């Protein structure tokens, strides 16, 4: 449930780096803790964001959770399929449940994120 090729933020977002871009979503742990996701509010394409900044919200039947971007840059793509099918984040958090693509300002942001092994160790310290 923790893909080895991604990097992870302590707020449970992941980043998949490809060229000068990163695709961002929330982890399996995050979707499982939220329960059934019913609505996702995402930023507009063109928005400039800094690493660690709030970029949206995930609403589940239980609660609301803030989405933090693990990397800084310019939002270049938003997953519009999530508007009608937010539940995809529950079923496929690392695939079809991706949220935004960000043109990276500083590739160094990625190096500050956890590796899969580090994230796994981090999760074991979290109360589930």
């Amino acid at each position, binding site marked *: 449930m923790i893909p080895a090729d991604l990097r992870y933020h302590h707020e449970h977002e992941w980043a998949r780096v490809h060229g000068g871009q990163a695709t961002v979503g929330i982890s399996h742990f995050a979707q499982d803790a939220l*329960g*059934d996701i*019913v*609505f996702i*509010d995402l930023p507009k394409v063109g928005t400039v964001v800094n690493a660690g900044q709030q970029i949206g919200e995930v*609403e589940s*039947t*239980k609660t*609301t959770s803030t989405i933090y971007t693990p990397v800084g840059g310019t939002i270049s793509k938003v997953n519009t399929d999530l508007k009608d099918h937010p539940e995809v984040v*529950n079923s496929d958090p690392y695939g079809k449940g991706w949220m935004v693509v960000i043109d990276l300002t500083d590739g160094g942001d990625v190096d500050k994120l956890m590796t899969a092994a580090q994230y796994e160790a981090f999760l074991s310290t979290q109360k589930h």
Partner: protein
Amino acid sequence: MKHTPLIDRHRAHGAKLVDFAGWEMPIQYASVVDEYHRVRTKAGLFDVSHMGRIAVSGPGSLAFLQRMTTNDVRKLAVGQAHYSMVCNERGGIKDDIFVYRTAESDYLLCVNASNREKILQWITEHQRAAGDACGIEDRTSDLAQLAVQGPASRDILLAVGADNVAGLKLHHSCESRPAGIPCFVARTGYSGELGYEINVPADKAADLWTQLLKKGEDAGLKPAGLGARDLLRLEMGYLLYGNDIGEDTTPLEAGADWTVAFQKGDFIGRQALQEQAQAGPARRLVAFELLEKAVPRHGFRILDPSSSRPIGEVASGNLSPLLQKGIGLGYVLSSFAPPGTALAIEIRGKILPAAVVKPPFYKRKA
């Protein structure tokens, strides 16, 4: 934490368990939204054994319950039930309950899990003080309660041999034998669907649970958790104690005027409620829907859209799976209560337009 007799079944089904008023209860088995849709289209099986069941019996029970509750208990025929309130002297709601008349002088109260001990203490003190000739017995631990809710629920009860529930009218009850087990079955529920609540001896509850799921399988019956139950009740505008009502809100403010029978004689809270009825409550609980997709939550501010002045607060809110809109209940100044009134809800700094609507949000197909 307290456990119902079905805890092992919940664990075997892989339920997500949470602390609910001191009880470890299933909030969901697989998916809240799937369980919600199953109840709206087929049927769901709920464990609601955490609800307090209190028997009141004896020749003085009618007079006693007339004083302790707001609705008119004289109107109940044997085998009939109604929704009612237990109020404090200020007219504030100590609990919202169901009163079942089970025999000539016997009644069963179904109270909220979170209020069980408080209500037991409250009614016991009043019974002692007044010397009413009635007994009060907490039946919660010896009776489990299963709810079968959804359009297929009648067929499912017939499939387990509870033949005499076939003609049961809404808010009526009878002794029956689902799966051969002697039970008290009522056509009541918290979902807005056709449904039944079954009080079953605690030691037979797991057996009944298994038999219902087995015989109800073809009709689509599956377990459903408290998460689905909350969505179902919110779409009906049913009140949730602790969120929508409490000791500082009255039945009149909550829009439950119909549970207050002023003409029946004295009851606790009557004077305060009568004064409020004459003056008109300053605030009222309304149902509202958001005009843009977003999710209102408990505690969010409600504003007058023309001046952005705060006029109230959200009590309950969620995204309606049926309407795919944010819906909620909230208290507003009475001048904003008529259906159609424009409101605004403040959601994390954003001001979103909303409108008062007449509940329920969902109407069952006839």
